[in-house]
């Protein structure tokens, strides 16, 4: 368990460092994820050591969204003032995304 967290934190630190050093527009943890993915491609055996803790951690991904979600308090006024564009944008783009992704994949898949 500690080894998995050590690996995740090391790759996050590398990602944050790279993102800052080269003023990249990509968030540090995403660079960390890409580097970990490449590292697993190079050393496939490592995945067995990381997977159990990582999957248990990701199972409760929902918990990690809560503190940010409570931030809606701070935006209550904005949401009340702009509820119509927000609601319309969310509903329309969810439908567009489902339909376009499914149709393109159906058309391209062998």
């Amino acid at each position: 368990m500690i080894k998995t967290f050590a690996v995740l934190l090391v790759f996050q630190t590398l990602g944050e460092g790279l993102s800052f050093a080269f003023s990249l527009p990509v968030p540090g943890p995403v660079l960390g994820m890409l580097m970990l993915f490449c590292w697993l491609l190079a050393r496939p055996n490592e995945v067995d050591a990381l997977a159990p803790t990582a999957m248990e951690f990701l199972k409760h991904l929902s918990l990690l969204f809560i503190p940010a979600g409570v931030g809606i308090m701070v935006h209550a006024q904005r949401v009340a003032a702009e509820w119509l564009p927000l609601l319309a944008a969310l509903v329309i783009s969810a439908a567009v995304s489902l339909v376009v992704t499914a149709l393109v994949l159906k058309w391209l898949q062998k």
Partner: protein
Amino acid sequence: MNAGIGQVWVYLSASPLLWLTATVLAYQLAYALYQRSGFNSLANPVATAVALLVAVLSLTATPYERYFEGAQFVHFLLGPATVALAIPLYQQLPKLRRNWFALLASALVGGTAAIASAMGVAWALGASPATVLSLAPKAVTTPIAMGVAEKIGGLPSLTAVLVILTGILGAVAARWLFDLLKIRDHGIRGFALGATSHGIGTARAFQVSEEMGAFSGLAMGLAGILTALLLPLVLKLLQAA
């Protein structure tokens, strides 16, 4: 007891411990309700827990900043969780290799359509620039979406809320839309759901079938990477033009 209950409250509410504990408890309670509902996507545990905490904070007149002093320890874990997404993505490698072009192209086209339609509709209906930018990364999993929102000048906490709402909307609408389009293949259904509704859609897809869940997880990872890599660049180029 030489301190009254009021004094104990004043002492505890000033320490990070209280709101960290409240966050974990709210999640446990919300998850139990979600289980009770038979994993109904309308009973999304994040939405329930947030509503509960907002109610408690409002009733006790606690400002968000005070709450976040405790909740930041949970929030911090979003970074390592994003890095950890490399592991399920790596486990989908055989599927990724077999059909990589079709999957990559549909994630790219579908993701672009989602971002353009969200920003376009909000802009046309008169939303403010910060709101429009906060909407842009809302189709991908929260840790990535918040990171991108911060990079492009949106409001990360507003984005987090929009991500959750999108997840619930997509998971509810998917079955109905796919039936209408006569798309029955579980691979395609799962992939489109994951590209639209990230982790919330993936959780839903796994309840239907293993195949649908695996494709949904793959789409969530691809959409997240593509959005994180391309959205900030595209917006930077558009702003420069």
